[in-house]
């Protein structure tokens, strides 16, 4: 059995897929008899130059031995954890510093054409290539992230889809008249797009939002939109909820809205499908589209409030069809193996640097 450190980052006062993934991985490694702990450092993205400073901080850590314990393996997850040095290092990449890659030039990135920003961007791209490249095993959480790593950093990786966090506990119940949104409340998740669709959706349909805002300003913006469109009776912010409450919310939703911009993976997609609920997503939602097929198990629309609104109405006006989409989603997820199993293979791969087995990228899970 090995002594393993999982390397994560934490944006204080937020909770999202990263935390779920790290928690699940820790649980599964421990269940298999390994000694495992998590090292997390806070992630600062402002000022912009912090990105480089934090890469340097991680690069300066000596994780070979801590508190008299020899660390056999480190598993990195997200930028900049893979900058850490260790003789045996794996990466299960959630994402890199997106503002310097696929979000560059969009409203979700603040990296400008200032030569200082460009100098930093280049240093980090090179740093990523080197530090991820030195891992004994490289994997990512989705085909989307694998493609980015290949295109931007010329690194091959295996795709290991994270299994569902709540295993086989997802269930379905008769749909009530609400659309569910789950996830961090921030601009890239585009909760506002769903909110702004409400005025053209049948008035008896509500929106329930699970999750917490990354920034107070964004929450204020959403509240202003609610005020503007007089939606107080139709929108409910639920904050963080217990697992049981979340399962219930999924089970009774008419549909689940999840249309972030170029998502890495999207647990929410799979949770919706496992709960037999159709997913409403957008053409540019990245990893979500690895699971949702238009008019088969969900609806994929243009990333506009109008399109989202019309999609919801289609489901509202054809509830049998909505149920059928949801059931197909459930069957798809069952076939993928992401509800019950998958961890054995994931653990075996992530620990492969210790066994010095050369693992070639294979057909990814769920495909």
């Amino acid at each position, binding site marked *: 059995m090995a002594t393993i450190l999982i390397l994560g980052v934490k944006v204080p006062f937020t909770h999202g897929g990263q935390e779920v993934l790290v928690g699940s991985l820790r649980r599964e490694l421990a269940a298999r008899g390994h000694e495992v702990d998590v090292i997390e450092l806070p992630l600062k993205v402002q000022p912009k130059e912090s990105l480089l400073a934090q890469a340097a901080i991680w690069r*300066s850590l000596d994780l070979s031995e801590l508190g008299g314990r020899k660390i056999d393996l480190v598993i990195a997850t997200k930028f900049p954890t893979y900058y850490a040095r260790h003789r045996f290092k794996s990466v299960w990449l959630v994402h890199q510093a997106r503002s310097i890659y696929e979000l560059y*030039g969009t409203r979700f990135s603040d*990296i*400008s*054409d*200032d030569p200082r920003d460009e100098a930093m961007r280049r240093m*980090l791209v*090179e*740093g990523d290539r080197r530090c991820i490249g030195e891992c004994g095993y490289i994997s990512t959480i989705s085909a989307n992230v694998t493609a980015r790593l290949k*295109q931007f950093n010329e690194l091959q990786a295996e795709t290991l889809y994270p299994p569902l966090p709540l295993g086989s506990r997802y269930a379905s119940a008769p749909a009530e008249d609400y659309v569910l949104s789950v996830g961090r409340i921030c601009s890239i998740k585009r909760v506002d797009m769903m909110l702004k669709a409400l005025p053209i959706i049948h008035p008896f349909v509500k929106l329930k939002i699970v999750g917490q805002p990354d920034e107070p300003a964004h929450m204020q913006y959403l509240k202003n939109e609610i005020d503007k469109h007089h939606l107080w009776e139709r929108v409910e912010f639920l904050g963080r909820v217990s697992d049981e409450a979340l399962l219930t919310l999924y089970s009774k939703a008419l549909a689940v809205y999840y249309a972030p911009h170029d998502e890495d993976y999207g647990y929410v997609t799979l949770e919706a499908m496992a709960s037999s609920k159709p997913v409403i997503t957008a053409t540019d939602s990245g990893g979500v589209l690895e699971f949702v097929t238009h008019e088969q198990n969900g609806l994929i629309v243009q990333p506009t409030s109008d399109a989202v609104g019309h999609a919801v109405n289609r489901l509202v006006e054809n509830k049998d069809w909505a149920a059928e989409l949801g059931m197909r989603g459930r069957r798809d997820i069952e076939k993928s193996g992401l509800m019950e199993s998958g961890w054995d293979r994931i653990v075996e791969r992530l620990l492969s640097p210790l066994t010095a087995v050369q693992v070639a990228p294979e057909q990814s899970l769920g495909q």
Partner: protein
Amino acid sequence: MFPGNQHRARIAWFSPLPLDGKHVDSPSAWMTGALLPELRGRFDIELFHDSFAELPGYPTHHYLRAYRRHREQPFDFFVYHLEDHRRTNFARAHLALIPGAVLLHDFFFHDEGPEPLLNSPYDAVLQHYFDQSLSWPARGTVHDRRGRVALREGGFAAVPIFCAERNREEFQRLVRRTLGAGHSHLLHYPAREAQDSWTGREVQRTLLFAGSPRIEDRAHVLLRAISESGELIRLRWLIDQSERQACEVLLKEFEVPEVELINGRSYGSWEELVRSGGVALHLHASVYGDPGPYLSISLMAGLPAVVTNFGAAEFLSERTVYKLQGGETEAGELRELLRHFSRNPRAHDASSVRAAANELYSRKAISSQFAAILAAEQPHLAQVAGNWRALEHAAEQALGREVLELLGAAGDDQLALAQRKFFAPALRELGLPEDRL
């Protein structure tokens, strides 16, 4: 290759790609599709754009890999295509990261560009380029972006190339600080030599139009002229499917009977349309945009081409096009012109138009001109590249100071020195300048 030089020059070519075959409606993609086959005999060309797609036959990369490719195998030229459209946002961003030749298909933009460019310190950067003793702008400074003119893009264009004379004049009038050598170039849109059997002996009573129903494309003027002409005129209107309803509303308003609405506006579709002959109408009248490749295609086919004398069209020669003055008399002038064509089938000398167009718009001619521009500007571009590397080094130095401050390692006290010593190996590895550490 340049005369006397065995080195085959390498070009990093930033453009939307002509992946949709004949359905291209981007002037950049059109020009790319037209010129690359001619240029590949002289240059090694690698393509850069903002998706993971590839253009068969050419090494194609995501544009954020450009600097790495440049390091692995240096490019002699960076060429950027810039349009008033978000599909060239990536080129618009990158032309300020590694300067080169910029083909400004547009000089006026409907929007101010990708979000980060709204606060681009472009003027400060250009000032710094010319005077490195100046300080870098303080972080968080709000930088003035004056309207929708491409001052930033013109400023960073080490070799500005225009496809419309009007834009070139505006650049010369408005852009004060630029990496360019003080002059600019004009490059027309290339088009295929006409291969049809239409000989121009008879100008048909057929009008060809590819404008939108929006006011600046003057469809309402055209329809009014047709309905008032009293002639039996057939209109073949190339549209985008999304415009069909608006077009039908206009047709009903002006009661124009003989109209064929053809879906799928693109340059390739226009090429097919002109084969059957007719009078080509390029009536776009706006500060934004110009007739683009549609006009080149029409003239290469020898068609009579009618334009509105406003904006980019003001600079077209009356030897090749028929100009309407625009304004109150516009519909009346067009009406009379249509009658003239209809009643005088041999009024138009297609072969001389085609001959003139062949000199201006043939792919061979345009690609030769383009290669000549690069050859002539090579010394200037090399100088800009050298100066730019110095600017980049200065930026790295400035960044190094910022990062050290964040790490508490910038000062000269004991703690700062210890911090600097601790972080030096990692920072060195990341590429921060040695003298900062």
